[in-house]
């Protein structure tokens, strides 16, 4: 599955786009962390919440649960939010 990586996390992947396997977002993130150690904790806190300024989008849907089921052709985008809060978030997602 394709995962698009924001610039803030490319020091881990050295790429803007990587492949990861799993049937849920949680599984994808564990696979990413297996490939790129340390990446998961920078974007997911110890209570398994997405960090405040990180967004995860599946295709065009902003997700909040790591249990979100995935299809093989889904595209996952990890986004470092820009200043501006919720209005900005919806604009980002609309623009995908």
């Amino acid at each position: 599955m394709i995962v698009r990586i924001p610039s803030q996390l490319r020091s881990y992947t050295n790429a803007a786009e990587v492949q990861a396997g799993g049937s849920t977002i949680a599984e994808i993130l564990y696979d990413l962390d297996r490939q790129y150690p340390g990446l998961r904790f920078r974007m997911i806190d110890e209570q398994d919440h997405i960090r405040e300024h990180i967004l995860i989008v599946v295709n065009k849907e902003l997700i909040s649960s790591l249990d979100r089921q995935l299809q093989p052709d889904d595209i996952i985008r990890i986004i470092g939010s820009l200043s501006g809060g919720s209005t900005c978030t919806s604009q980002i997602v609309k623009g995908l």
Partner: protein
Amino acid sequence: MSDKKKSGTPQKGKVTLLIATRKGGFMLHSNRQREKWTLQGPILLGSIINHMHLDPRDGKTILLAASTGHLGPTIFRSTDRGETWSEATKPPAFPKAIKGKKGETIRYTFVLAPGHPSEPGIWYAGTSPAAIFRSEDNGDTWHGVAGFNKNPLRRTWIGPKEFTPPGGGGLHSIQIDPRDPNHIYIGFSLGGVFETTDQGATWQPLNSGCQADFLPDPDADFGHDPHALRLHPADADVLYQQNHLGVYRMNRPNGIWERIGVNMPEPVGDIGFPILLHPRNPDQIWVFPMDGTDVWPRTSPGGEPAVYTTRNAGKSWKRMRKGLPPAHGYFTVKRQAMTADLEDSLGIYFGTTGGQIWGSTNEGRRWYRLADFLPEILAIEAVTFQQ
């Protein structure tokens, strides 16, 4: 002893300042005369670096506490004096809460402290929210000190989640008794000074004598607000703190703080963030007073930056400002941004929120600007390398 920094012992060598800033880490290297300084960096440009600390036991390992606006907090490690860096495998983190309960998350690691000289590889870290973590493998993996982090009284000690200072309160000071690795002092915002004599299994507040006129009970056991706590490396019965309300000293085994800042000039006062101890003279310290009136500008009183020192444990104070801006100097020196080397003629240094490093090689009598235009400086540590 080659590049190891032994507490209090005079050293000759090349001084390096480890500089932690709001936008990355830097190293400022001197020549042997401490007249020429060369900047190295940035390290992790863009990351918020709260602290960089050399391990004095091996003279080459440096730990660095990092986070960014977007990403969670972590620890980076270098085992070659900062030439290369790798991330900790398991940085400080709270345990995951059981289902239905709300767990805590680390906002950032604020302070890094090498363990006792007899315990190589041991490090401690203080975080926001206030908690303490320990590593037994040179900072690669960290676990919480349960006696504090899981203490049923911890939330009472550190204050309610809803009442935190701007930027978040945290555990900012960790001081280990050079005579006993089990005896550790900590200081944290809105809590006070605490000590353990069993390496963190149990903790006792140590705040008697501190004023706290902002508390309903000014003589409360905890709820106090130390800004920086320091234990004297050559006389471990002497403690100092720069507190929210003044400068204090304690002589153990007596457990009473004495306010020694009362003799500071009245228009200046004794409020500030950092406090620096002479590594060989337990009666000499330096402070950098700030304006704690009105809305707490936290800048130098009257816009006239000055360091103050006492050589007699606070009986009298001397103003030291030669070389500093005579007027309109509105920077702040944060609680970890003042340090000393160990040369015979002691060098003392401070970093400002305006990105300047100031240094003096004669204990503050004359100041020179060693670096400028850096990001906001959060912490500096002086180390001595032999080559």
